C-alpha cells in the first residue's frame, strides 16, 4: 500500500523499546494465578507499522500507559497515537490492533480500540469505524485489506 507513493511521514521520531519483561518467581510457580495486566497486553501489541520497518512501540504509536485492562471486568481499552494528525493509516493501524487483540485474548474480553483524544484530524470517524463490529468483520472479509493486516501481524524476521 505504501509502495510507489510518497510516505506521509518519511522521517518519524523513533523511541527506545522497553526491554523484555522480567520473569518473576511467582510466574514460575505452578499454583499462583497470574492475572492479565497492562504490560501483557502491551507485549501482545508488538505490531509492525504498515509504512516503516519499525514496530508501533518504536514509533510511540502504542504506549503502555495508554493500555488499560481490567481482568475482573473483562475489558481492554487501547488508545493509539498516529505519528501525524493527518495520517491516512490511522484506520488500518487501529484495525490491526483490534485484530491482534481479538486473536490473542480470550472471548470474555470486550475490546475497545480508539485514537488518543486530540491527536488526529478525523478522530471521531475512525473511532466510530473501529467500534462497529459489523464494519470490522466486513473489512476482514476484504482479501486485500486482510493481507495488509496480516503483514502487520506476522512476526518480522530481520
Amino acid at each position, binding site marked *: 500500500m505504501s509502495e510507489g507513493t510518497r510516505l506521509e511521514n518519511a522521517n518519524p521520531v523513533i523511541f527506545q523499546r522497553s526491554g523484555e519483561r522480567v520473569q518473576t518467581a511467582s510466574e514460575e510457580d505452578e499454583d499462583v494465578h497470574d492475572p492479565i495486566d497492562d504490560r501483557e497486553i502491551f507485549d501482545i501489541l508488538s505490531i509492525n507499522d504498515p509504512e516503516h520497518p519499525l514496530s508501533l512501540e518504536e514509533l510511540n504509536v502504542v504506549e503502555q500507559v495508554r493500555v488499560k485492562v481490567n481482568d475482573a471486568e473483562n475489558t481492554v481499552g487501547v488508545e493509539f497515537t498516529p505519528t501525524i494528525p493527518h495520517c491516512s493509516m490511522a484506520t488500518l493501524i487501529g484495525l490491526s490492533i483490534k485484530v491482534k487483540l481479538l486473536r490473542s*485474548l480470550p472471548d470474555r474480553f470486550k475490546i475497545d480500540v480508539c485514537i488518543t483524544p486530540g491527536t488526529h484530524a478525523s478522530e471521531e470517524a475512525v473511532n466510530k469505524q473501529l467500534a462497529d463490529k459489523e464494519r470490522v468483520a466486513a473489512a476482514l472479509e476484504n482479501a486485500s485489506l486482510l493481507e495488509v493486516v496480516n503483514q502487520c501481524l506476522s512476526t518480522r524476521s530481520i
Partner: protein
Amino acid sequence: MAAESTLALSLVEEFVSGLQDSKAKDAAKGVKDGKFTVLQLVEALGSSLTSSQPHTRARGVHLLSEVLQECYGDLTEREVEVLIAFYENRLKDHYVVTPPVLKGLKALTKCTNLPPGSAVSMLRSVFQDIHVQVRLSYCTFKLKGLGADFVFGFVQSMDGERDPRNLLLAFQIAKNLIHGGYDLGKFTEELFEVTSCYFPIDFSPPPNDPHGITREELVQALRAVLTGTPKFAEFLLPLLIEKLDSDVQSAKLDSLQTLVRNSCLAVCLQLKQELTGLWTSVRREVFQTSSEKIESAGLAALTALTSCLSRSVLSSDSEDSLSTFLDFILKDCKHHLCEPDLKLVWPSAKLLQAACSASTRASHIITVAVMPSLLEQYNNRTQCSHRRTLLEVVQRFIHSVKNCQSSDNDESVLLAFREALCSIVFSALSESNSSLQITATSVLTSLAQQAGLLVESDIELALDHLTRLLLTEEDDRVSLAVVECAGALAQLHPALVITKLIPKLKKEMFTGKLLKISRILSTGTHTSMRQRCLSALAAVSIQPSVVQESTPVLLEVLRSAHTGNLAKKMLFLFIGVCLQIQRALPKCVFVSVFFFFVNAFDLFAQCRAYFLMRCVWLPFRLAGQTASRAVSLFLDGDVSFLPDNSFPSHMQLLKVFVKYRLQVEVPQIDKLLSALEEMSCACSHPLSYTSAAKCFAGLVNKKPQGDSLDSCACPQVAKALLLRYHPLFTTLTDKLFSLLDDADLGPMAADGFSLLMSDSTDVLNRACHADVRIMYRQRFFSENSAKLVQGFNAAPQEKKPNYLKALSNIVNKLPKQVQVTELPALLSLLLEALSCPDQDIHLSTLSCLEPVLVNPPQVLIQQLEALINRLLALISSPAMSVRIASLSCISTLSHFPVLPFRARVLRALAKPLDDKKRLVRREAVQARGEWFLLGSPGGR
C-alpha cells in the same frame, strides 16, 4: 693414430660447435682410457683455440678445463708446465674466456707434480690480470710455499673492496692465512692495514638484501682476523684506543668487545704507555657512562685485560705488568672510595670489582689495598646512608672475590678480614635502620656462601642476630632478607641451623602462645611473627637433614593452631612448605606428614583434601604408598566405631585416591571392592552408599581389563563400564532392561538410564583420570535402541511406561544432531510416550521432538494427525512446563502442510489464551498468531 685424432676431433667439434656439454665427459674418459693424450686433444682443439670469435675460444678452453679437472693426476711435469704457460697467456684474453681459464688453473693446482715456481708465477699472473674481485674465491689454494708473495697478492687484490660478500670471503681468507701458519713476513702490517681499515664495520644491509649478510657477521669475521695473531697486537692497540676516543657509540662498543675477545694482547701489554692509554680510555667510558651497554662492555674489557695480564709469563728482567696495571687502577680509583657522598664511588667500585673478579692474584692485590680503607671508612662514618653505601660496596667486593675463586682449596682472600667484616656486619645488624639491616643481611649471605670463610662462632652469632630480627622486626623487607639469608646459611651449615635456629624458633612459636590473646588484641603481631618464623623454617628446609628437623616443628604448629583464619593462613603456608621440600624430602618425613594428615583430618578436612590432591602429582612410588595407607585405613581402621558423620569423610578420602591415574596400582583392590560393594548395598546412610557406589565405579573403571566383574548391577558400575566399552557392559545393560519389567524397581531402573547417559561431575570424568571413550552415548544408543523397542512391544501394558521413560532418558541426553537422524525410527514409541501419564516423560519427549519438528522427516508428516491430537491433549496438562513445551511444538508445527487442522487447532488454542499462568498465555498467543496467519492472504 689417425683414428685417435679423428675421435678427438669429432668430440671437440661436437662440444665446441654442437654445444653438447656431455662430450666433455666423453673426452675426459677418452684421455683416462688412453684413447688419446691431452696433447692430442690440444692439437684437435687448435682451430677453436685460435678462432677469432671469443665465444668459440671460451668454449675450447672450457672443454680443456673440464678434461683437466677429471684427469689432472695423469699429467707429466712437462705437460703441466706447458699448460700453465698456456693458461697464463689466456688470462690476458677476452673476459668471456676468463672463467674457464680460472677453472683450468684451479684443476692444475691440484696436480701433484707441480713444477717448482710455477705456482708463484701462476698466482702472480692471476693477481695481475684478474680485475673482477668476485674471483677472489680462487685464491683459496693451499700453497704454503707461496708465502709473502701470496699475501702481497692477496693484499693487493682485496684492497679497496666494497662488496660485503667479497669482504666476508676476504676476511675468512685472511683468517685462514693467519691460522694456517703462512709466513706473513714483511706484509704483516700491510695485511693488518688492509683489513683494519674496515674497523669498526659500518654497514647496514639494504632492505631485501638477497645475500642476507648482516653487520654482525662482518663484525665477527673482522674481529676474528684482527684478534687472530699476536703479531697484530702492536698495531691493534693504538687503533682500539683511537676508536675508543672517538665519538661514535658503535665504534666504542665494538672496540671494547674486540678488547674482550683479544687474548693475545698480553704480549705487547708490556708496553707501558699503551696500557696507560687503554686504562684511561676504559676509565673514561665507565666514569662518563652514556649507555649501560658501553659501561658493561668496558667493565668486561677491563676484566679481560686483567685476566690476560695475570696469565702473562714474566721474564726475569721485566717488571710485573699486572701489578703495574693494578697500580694505575688503584691510584685512580681508591681515593674515590673514600668519599661516599660523591658520585664516582660506584663507578670506581665497579671498575675495581671488574679487575678484582679477573683472577685470584688480582683479587688479592685489590682486596688487600681496598678493604682496610673501606672498613675504616665504615667505622668512621656515622650517617646511615653512607654506611649503607659502604656496606653495599663491600658486598660487591665479596661477591666478585667469590666469582674468581678457583675450586681448589685456596685460602679465601677475605680470610684476613673475616673478623673485621663480621664485626661490621653484626654492628649493622644491631642498628635500627632497616635498609642498613637489609644490606647487612645480604653481606652476610654473600659471606655465608663462601665455603670455609666463617667459623662456627660467627655463624652462631649470625643466627642469633637473624633470630632476633625475625622475632622483633616488623618490616616485611627485612624479614624477607633475613629469611633468604637463613636459607643461605642452611645450605652450607645445616648442623648449626638445626641446633641453633630451629629450637629457638620452635620455642618462640610455642611460648609466644601464652601471650597470644593479649598480643592479637593489641596489634596482631603474633600472627605475623609466626608467619615469619614459618617462612624462615621453610627457607632453611633445603637440606634433607634440616627438613627432618623442621617438619616435626611445622606439624606441631599445625596441630596447635587449628581454628579460624590464622589456621587457614598457616596451612596454606605450610602446604607451600611441603611442596617446596618435597624435592629433598626423605621418605620417612613424607610418610610422617601424610600420617599426620590422615590422623588429624577431622580438624583439617579442607586442607587435607588439598594436600592429598597434591599427592596425586607425586611420583607413583609415593602415590602408591598413600593409596595403600588410605586403603588400610578404610579396611582395617576404626571405621566401625567412628560416628556416622565421619563416614562420608572417609569416603572423601577414598574418592581422592580413586582420582589417581590409571597406572597406580591400588593395593588390595579385590578386598576393597567387595567392602565397597557391601557398603553400597547394605548401608542405610544415603550419602555413604552413593559415595561408596561412586568409588566402586571409579575403581572398576580403572581396573585392568579381563577381571571378573559380574557381581553388581548398580547403574554406577554399568556407567563405569560403558565409559570404557567394557565387553561385560552388555550383561549389565541386559540386567537393567530386565529390571524394567520389575514392578517395584522398574521406575528406578528407568531413572538409571538417565544416570548412564549423563556426564558425571564428581568421580567418573576425565579430570579424575577416568577411562572415558568418545561417543559412548551414541554407541550405547545404537546398540540398545532396538532392544528397547523390542522390550516395549513385548511388555505388558502397565510396564510400558518404564520403557518409555528409559527411552526418553536416553534420547534426551543424545547430541541433537544424532537425535535428528535417529528419531524417525523411534517415532511411534515417542508418540506413545506422549500419551502415557508421566509428566516427566512428556517433558523430555517434547524437548526431543521440538528440534526434530523444525526439519520434519517424512515419517512424521504421515503421522501428523496423531501428533497434533496428542499435542492438543497436552495443552491442558497440569504441569506448566508441559503446557509450554506442547504449545511451542504446536507453534512450530504451523510451518507444516497442516491447513486441514487449522480450524480445530485455532479452536483448541482459544482455551490456553485464558490460562492462569502468564508464561503459558504468552506461548499460546504466539502459537495462535502463527496458526491464524496460516492459509490467510498476506500470511503463509
